[in-house]
């Protein structure tokens, strides 16, 4: 069995050719790193580090930028929240199974956390229930989390319902955590918004949306619904009137979700295939840091 984490790391090293991998580390560090007030030592600046952490006097003496490090930095907990319902076994907009993209995104985020010495946990499940894998350190544990998501998602899984997992987190997770939510294009609804507001009060939340397949218009191909295995008539889906109506409905849903997440204070990223995961995560972290 090829290791899922291996795949994630090779993807990250390919990304490193284009952007310094350390930059991503720096982004993660500045977003998630808990700060204490007890200064420990200085280390060299890595691109992506928070500018306000630069010790300007020390840098001036040293000749190159130095970053202040603090002791007794709290060990952060990253909670990966994944939907393993059958919706995630469907195709994404670019034709990959959404599950693969989710595993890639979770892996990248988990690995970044691991490199910062943070512990990583997982809450996943479908409409029938949620499972929690407690937060631990180590690549073996991370690999187990990814395997859990990968093998737990199939066309035979229960229907997707992310609210179930979010409720589970609200009920069971104590303390302030970093939540990384990977799901597909959810629709706005008041219950969800209230739930997110409740979670946001307690946790830091990053939200990654995996694009759903185009159902109407020119991109529509022979497809069947994962909900009930019924085929969709692509000759109808391709008709201009239906395509236009679908495009309108999609745009409304998009803007509704954006408005909801923005009002709650959650940064959202979108990804349509696993190649874009690194870039999008980088942009997402950047956006979240700016939003502060």
């Amino acid at each position, binding site marked *: 069995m090829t290791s899922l984490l291996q795949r994630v790391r090779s993807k990250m090293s390919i990304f490193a050719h284009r952007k310094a991998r350390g930059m991503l580390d720096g982004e993660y560090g500045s977003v998630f790193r808990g700060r204490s007030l007890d200064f420990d030592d200085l280390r060299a600046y890595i691109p992506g580090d928070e500018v306000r952490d630069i010790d300007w006097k020390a840098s001036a003496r040293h000749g190159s930028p130095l970053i202040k490090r603090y002791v007794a930095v709290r060990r952060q907990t990253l909670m990966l929240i994944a939907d393993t319902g059958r919706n995630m076994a469907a*195709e994404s907009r670019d034709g990959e199974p959404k599950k693969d993209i989710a595993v890639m995104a979770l892996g990248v985020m988990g690995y970044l956390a691991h490199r910062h010495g943070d512990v990583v946990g997982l809450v996943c499940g479908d409409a029938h229930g949620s499972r929690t894998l407690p937060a631990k350190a180590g690549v073996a544990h991370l690999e187990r989390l990814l395997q859990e998501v990968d093998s737990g998602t199939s066309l035979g899984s229960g229907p997707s319902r992310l609210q179930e997992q979010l409720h589970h987190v609200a009920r069971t997770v104590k303390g302030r955590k970093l939540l990384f939510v990977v799901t597909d294009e959810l629709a706005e609804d008041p219950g969800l918004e209230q739930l997110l507001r409740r979670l946001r009060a307690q946790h830091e939340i990053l939200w990654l949306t995996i694009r759903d397949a185009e159902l109407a218009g020119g991109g529509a191909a022979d497809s*069947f619904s*994962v909900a009930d295995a019924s085929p969709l008539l692509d000759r109808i889906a391709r008709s201009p*009137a239906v395509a236009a*109506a679908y495009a309108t409905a999609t745009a409304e849903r998009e803007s509704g979700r954006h408005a909801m997440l923005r009002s709650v204070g959650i940064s959202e990223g979108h990804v349509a295939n696993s190649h874009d995961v690194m870039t999008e995560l980088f942009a997402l972290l950047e956006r979240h840091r700016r939003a502060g």
Partner: protein
Amino acid sequence: MELMYWWILPVAAAAAAGAGWLVFRKGNRENARRRPVANADRLTALPEYQAALRRYRRWLGVAALAASALAASAAIAVARPVELTTIRPVQHNRDIVLCLDASGSMSSADARVVEVFTELAADFDGERIGLTIFDSSAVQVFPLTDDYSYVQEQLTMAKDAFNGEAGTSGFLDGTWNGRGSSLIGDGLASCVESFPAADGTAHDGPPRDESPRSRSVVLATDNFLSGDPIFTLDQAGDLAQERDVRVYALNPGDFDYGTAAGQPGALLRAAAEATGGAYYPLDSPDAVAGIVRDVQATEAAAIQGAPRAVVSDRPDLPLTVALLSGFVLAGASWRLRP
């Protein structure tokens, strides 16, 4: 309406059921080549999609209906729908000689007889007809023939002559040679003689193997004899009987008193009935048409063939239905094209 190959229908039904089973058997395996998509209800719940789906289903229903109608009607057409009827074929092998008394008192009745035969000749098919007129001597206007255009032409001329129209007097030439008038026995004998001999010796060449033709004479006369005929009416009747010729006598002037056997009408009746024919006294010339048709019917009935079962194919209805449903199916398929 019956089906000749009725066993085609269960075979066709079984074939249709088999085809249907093959097509609809693997409804789920179809999904193997489709891609799974999530949140399909976001598309299918759109009113536009629902409307298009309803339209699509309607056309699908039309196509299914047309296809099954096509299959059913084609199967029925293949099973060969036939109509079984029993007919008694009328054989058109009659010979009719019109034997008309050309004396002045008969002209209106003669004109009617000729007129009626002019009409009848239009429908003749295989019958032969001849015309002989007589007064004191008999003249054969035309012998037995099936050249109907010629017959029509001659009968029209005869009608004009009997109606006394100008320029037709020559038609009756030769019927009067002064030896008397209405020499009926001679006239009838001439008419009977104009049939070919029953043994076929009158034919040139080898005798033909053909069914015997019925022979009849339509004799229009008032039987007022004046003069001295060679043949008496009785002798002529015997000759007709011998030659197997039936005589149908039409008498426009039946002025018999009482029922005595010596009256002219009674004599004519006796002669006609002796040959197997019939005798019709005429009240007016207009009654001729009915009588002649009556005679024709009697003659036809007398020589009807044996009853035969006739099988006639009736594929027109199923084939029409098949054609129409084919058109409908083509239209629906065009609407349903991917």
